[in-house]
């Protein structure tokens, strides 16, 4: 029998190339700070590499979980020093592509970002994982270590809140979610 072995699993490199951008975008939306977001992503990738034998089964979920935990740790540290006001600390300039000055587009971006900042941290995590990270309810539940029911209810509350903030529509008496 010939043993198959590899010094570095090429699948890890493939994973990094494919998912580093989405991890960064997720981190930016969760922390509101590009510099901190890059730090979180780098630490996430190193930890994922160090535990690749475990992470390889579901690397995307593993990396998102590490990222979320790092983000929460950072938020806890900030809370000890000064109450965090995400709406005030969300950096906007990085969301504007260089050389583009479309007022309406920028306003849209500000509106969405401001709306995300209006959510609770838990709601923001769910929204970003589900709609930017494109994780399923089950994957999101695994990453956040909560039940699928909690993911659904949090998603429903978050989207209802966003619906109000983004469309100026009044919140319906009951919000149903079927995902």
């Amino acid at each position, binding site marked *: 029998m*010939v*043993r198959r072995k590899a*010094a570095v699993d090429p699948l890890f490199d493939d994973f*990094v190339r494919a998912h580093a951008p989405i991890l960064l*975008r997720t981190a930016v939306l969760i922390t509101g700070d590009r510099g901190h977001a890059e730090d979180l992503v*780098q630490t996430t990738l190193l930890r994922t590499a160090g535990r690749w034998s475990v992470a390889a089964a579901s690397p995307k979920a593993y990396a998102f979980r590490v990222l979320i935990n790092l983000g929460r740790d950072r938020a806890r540290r900030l809370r000890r020093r000064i109450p965090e006001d995400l709406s005030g600390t969300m950096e906007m300039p990085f969301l504007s592509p260089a050389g583009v000055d479309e007022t309406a587009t920028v306003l849209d971006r500000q509106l*969405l970002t401001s709306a995300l900042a209006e959510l609770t941290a838990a709601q923001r995590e769910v929204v970003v994982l589900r709609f930017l990270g494109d994780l399923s309810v089950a994957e999101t539940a695994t990453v956040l270590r909560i039940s699928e029911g909690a993911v659904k209810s949090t998603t429903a509350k978050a989207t209802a809140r966003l619906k109000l903030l983004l469309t100026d529509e009044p919140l319906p008496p009951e919000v149903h979610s079927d995902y």
Partner: protein
Amino acid sequence: MITDDELHDLLRQRLSAETAHLNLRTDPVPWVHGRLRRRRNRRIAQVGGVVITAILAAVLVTVQSASSPTEAHKSSNVLQRFHIALVDAVSDDVIKITGSEQTFWVHQGDGRMVSPNGLFEDVVTTQNGEVTGTVVNYTTKTWYTMSTSVSNEPTGVVANPCDGIGANMLTFADPTALQQELKAEQFVRVPGTQVVDGQTTVELESSCNAKPVATIYLNADTLLPVEMMPLLPPIAELHDPFVMHFAILPATPANLAHLKLQIPAGFTQVPAGT
């Protein structure tokens, strides 16, 4: 009126579109590899020579002391030979160990280890628990000398022998601590043979208190080591898998030349750990 599904689609589109231009400023793959390599180099520079030579010596004595590697070795005779091996085994040979990304040249006789690949270590161990060496960084064109105490514990005191093998491999250099670790460790042959590096090998699993420590492959004919994979941190966690290939070479001038540290002209000495 916008429906929930429409809102979800809108969120997906907007979140994707508005963050699509956000990318890491550098290619993350070489960055991650570089960080992992530096972390491993730092640790190996401190403990690698001691660990590798000690493990290699243990492997070799396991081979020498066993008529057949089919038994668990735990007798006092084997332990004694393990102990003696730290000083005597393969003292006349040069050992080439090819790691996952680096090559180490080890000369057991004087405990020197050189890794001439990017980060260059020349580690000399002494008997009083000190590891000294020189580290040359080819990236920054700097070099420094290092000195590390390999054991701060009182002689003979090891709370958990397995801790010394995994979490604190520095104790490999402490003969008394090592002896206690070896008492708890077993080498057991895995049935059958495997082909590794083109050689038919037998596989030994090394464990401590039922915890796997390393997998070692020996040439089925010569019983010399062919390959080893540490399974415990800190080395194992930095590479998956971290594999070491062994070649036992005669101490010819050409082979011994690999153990000579040459600091390139123009490199600057910096404080240790820089």
